[in-house]
């Protein structure tokens, strides 16, 4: 792997620009991915925040769905934030009837688990692998209800007395329920760039 990896940001919908900016600040070459030919150039892929129903529908229509599933299965490092975490999950609760995900991450995610827009919140969060807490922004965020044995839990938040998983890693896959791309703290993206370059 070269020292300057090419990392794609899935760009059919969502906060693409923020991810591109974070990746470029970290020295990666960031490209937007809307077509299979663009996916083919990527050493790693970011699935941004947005609406997972829209992302799924457009990925199917524009023939990006199967190529992404194949790349994830064959080991391409992939990082999903919020809706992107939903797209990486093997199982989704409270999705729409026909909603599918790319999968790969052995977890069950609950969509909009923290509630509606007014229930969005931010706070400092300890994340395994980072020395200092990250400022985490949760917007209509999902959480992970169940994680398989091979999934490493990186962060949780307490909701009504129960710990809810909000950041995980499983081999080449990284996912957060919050939005590390919002703001100027690039350390979580740094973990992902390390996954791509190692």
């Amino acid at each position, binding site marked *: 792997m070269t020292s300057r990896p090419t990392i794609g940001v899935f*760009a*059919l*919908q*969502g*906060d*693409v*620009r*923020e991810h591109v900016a974070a990746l470029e600040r970290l020295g990666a070459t960031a490209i937007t991915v*809307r077509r299979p030919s663009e996916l083919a150039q990527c050493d790693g892929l970011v699935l941004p*925040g*947005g*609406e997972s*129903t*829209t992302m799924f*529908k*457009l990925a199917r*229509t*524009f023939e990006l769905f199967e190529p992404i599933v194949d790349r994830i299965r064959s080991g391409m490092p992939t990082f999903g934030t*919020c*809706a992107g975490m939903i797209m990486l999950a093997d199982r989704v609760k*409270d*999705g*729409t009837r026909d909603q599918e995900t790319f999968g790969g991450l052995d977890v069950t995610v609950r*969509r*909009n688990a923290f509630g*509606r*827009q*007014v229930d*969005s919140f931010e706070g400092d969060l300890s994340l395994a692998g980072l020395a200092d807490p990250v400022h985490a922004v949760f*917007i*209509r965020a999902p959480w992970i209800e169940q994680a398989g044995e091979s999934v490493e839990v990186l962060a949780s938040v307490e909701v009504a007395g129960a710990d809810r998983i909000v950041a995980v890693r499983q081999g080449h896959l990284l996912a957060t329920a919050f*939005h590390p791309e*919002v703001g100027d703290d690039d350390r979580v993206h740094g973990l992902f760039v390390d996954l791509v370059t190692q």
Partner: protein
Amino acid sequence: MAEMLKGGVIMDVVDATQAKIAEDAGAVAVMALERVPADIRAQGGVARASDPDLIDGIIDAVSIPVMAKARIGHFAEAQILQSLGVDYIDESEVLTPADYANHIDKWAFNVPFVCGATNLGEALRRITEGAAFIRSKGEAGTGDVSNAVTHIRKITGEIRRLQGLRDDELYVAAKELQAPFDLVKEIAATGKLPVTLFTAGGIATPADAALVMQLGSEGVFVGSGIFKSGNPSERAEAIVKATTFYDDPDVVAKVSRGLGDAMVGINVSDIPEPHRLETRGW
């Protein structure tokens, strides 16, 4: 907050059935209202916030964010919408204004607001009042995209102009824009609004969406253009696709085929000035 909607289409819907059609077509959010702007325009009378039952029905029908409109300055309507749990409030010129001097103090709410603007100064005044999301106004309910084009060009053009000014010229620029100096200075440095910018008002075709996206919009609102057309479901999907591939004419051409009749529309120039919605907001 509204960053997650970027690259997406927000659709006006009047009931749960339309809301499902919008969600299935790939909308990133829906705007719940009793009458689409074309009908408000045709029927006249005072247009107010929607019945809570209607909004509840739409919230229950879909999993994507639900927005609803309050009248300009009508903070009590906005309080009701917040209590219903809508995801965004649109303080909208499409409804009859409740206050001809003041807009809502949006900082007083937890729910984020989207507001219309025709130029940069207006956008910055709304942001100063707490708006988390700006859309051009266009001329709602017409299917005529010309005012939306004027407004998005004006907003982005004024941002470009600020970027070319010397620091000592920004004071007068702020005065002329009738906007706070700190915000003007920030925009001169970053070259963009500090919040998400969409286009609204008169978008009726996939090509309309591609046009305003190429002019610097980060997403689109479609009001009457979908459910006043001959084939709402297909048209909704086509506009979603054109918004994503706005810079790829092959895709926009492909999705534009066989959509049936677009909404009939009204030429903005045929609407007498006092009846234009774009002039509402101060």
